[in-house]
């Protein structure tokens, strides 16, 4: 489904060249769920950016469903790839209503001069909002800018579902939410991933999440994958094991330590 071949990405920073990704290889089958942990600056987000096409790698190949998409622009990859980032503001259009945002998500390939929101579509939207249990079904005509961060992120997850991506990239998508909303949004995402069997990469700072979810775990440091646990190996891992591995790599990260506490 998704294959990365020795992906490298170098950024220029003043006089220096910083290697954000130093040769990443990854092969994911359909339905695989990989969780990625690592300190800040390990290259996790850069990795997702390269897959989504918002940045081009310096070297290497990105292959989606057997097709080389390394230089394909982000909007063309969007037919297979859905993405939810940490920023609740990123995934929705604030000045437009909930209904209009949902309408934008449900039509991916062909957009025409047909009316975007029909009565039938509106009824579907009410059902979709009812299933969130956030009372948003009464607020279909409210601009999204009036929603809270948690509500917006839940809407973003719903929109990602409607677009039926084959690959889902989650970039710490609950990190900016309060605990209650974070739990709700992770539940929604889990349901979605299970129901659709979508191939998923989830970047997270929360080691418990990283262990509880998915069938494979990558630990990144300085642009490289330092540990790769699959199947039973991953099942056997505990948070303490991860902390130990981190200290072996001399990774010091307050945020990580807090998350484990």
């Amino acid at each position, binding site marked *: 489904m998704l294959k990365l071949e020795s992906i490298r990405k170098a950024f220029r920073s003043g006089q220096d060249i910083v290697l954000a990704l130093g040769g990443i290889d990854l092969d994911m089958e359909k339905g695989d769920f990989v969780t990625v942990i690592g300190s800040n600056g390990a290259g996790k987000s850069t990795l997702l950016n390269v897959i989504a096409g918002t940045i081009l790698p310096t070297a290497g190949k990105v292959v989606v469903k057997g097709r080389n998409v390394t230089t394909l622009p982000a909007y063309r990859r969007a037919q297979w790839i859905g993405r939810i980032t940490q920023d609740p503001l990123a995934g929705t259009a604030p000045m*437009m209503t909930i209904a209009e945002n949902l309408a*934008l998500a449900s039509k*991916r390939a062909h957009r025409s*001069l*047909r009316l975007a929101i029909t009565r039938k579509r509106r009824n579907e939207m009410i059902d979709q909002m009812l299933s969130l249990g956030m009372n948003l079904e009464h607020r279909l005509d409210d601009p999204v800018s009036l929603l809270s961060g948690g509500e917006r992120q839940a809407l973003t997850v719903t929109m990602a579902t409607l677009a039926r991506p084959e690959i889902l990239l989650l970039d710490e998508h609950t990190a900016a939410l309060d605990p209650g909303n974070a739990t709700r949004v992770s539940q929604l995402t889990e349901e979605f991933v299970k129901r659709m069997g979508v191939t998923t990469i989830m970047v997270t700072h929360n080691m418990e999440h990283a262990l509880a979810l998915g069938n494979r775990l990558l630990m990144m440091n300085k642009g490289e994958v330092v540990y790769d646990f699959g199947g039973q190996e991953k099942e056997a891992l505990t948070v303490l094991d991860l902390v130990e591995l981190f200290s072996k790599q001399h990774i010091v990260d307050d945020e990580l330590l807090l998350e484990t506490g």
Partner: protein
Amino acid sequence: MASILIHAAEQGLLYGIAALGVFITYRILNFPDLTVDGSFVTGAAIASSLLVSHGFDPFLVLLIAFAAGAVAGVITGLLNTRLGITDLLAGVLSMIMLYSINLRIMGRPNISLLRVDTIIRVVERGFHPLGGMSVLVFVGLVTLAVMLILVLFFKTEIGLVLRATGDNERMVIAQGVNTKRMKVGGLALSNGLVALSGALVAQYSGFADVGMGIGTIVTGLAAVIIGGSLIRSRKVLWMTTSVLIGSLIYRTAVMFALRYGYVIGFQASDLKLVTSIIVIIALVVPAFRERMSRRVKAC
């Protein structure tokens, strides 16, 4: 007095179409587009020269003017999205290029339409039972039709994407849309409307002049901002209505300023200065008000 108001209303509606064009770029696409100062004249120039030299139908020239304006918008869009020139500069470059092109189209700096059958004359003949109101009724119908088509368009799938492009471009890209193409399309639509307005204004006032487009962006913004301060809504129907109301108010104010402004020493040539100052104030006041309210909250 009544005739002043009728003239102001007629002009408010005709220039209102250009204001709708400015509304599309400024409010919807979030792209401050200066092309309009040139494309307004392009519409007037094409309409006038086709009417005078080639005897075209006065309604047909409106469509041709729209198409020409749309091409101008496409050029600005390509300069910005394909060549990476910033939005303001892309608009300025198009505007300046259009100045030369408009002179080429006209062949001289101005064209009189006194001796040709303009759309206004056709309407005066056709609607003559309405007497002095015939032109107002006609331009009212035309402008309303343009507005309603626009409102409908913004409810279609493509229209929705266009609005979202100005609102959150990254999100629209993630929905699989080529936002560059959307911007180019939006600029084409906007400048098409502005050129249509120019073609109508030329026929209405009986001439086309190469300098008639100067300040189109500012008067358009004035209409958008005046209207927006009166009707605060996020619904496209209300936003477009507010633009037309803003344009009507602006033209009425201009008419009175020109008529009675001499009392306070106002000259016609001061108009653009005063308009720009009004736009500056209108742009600054909301930001200022917000800062004040934040300061009050902080206390």
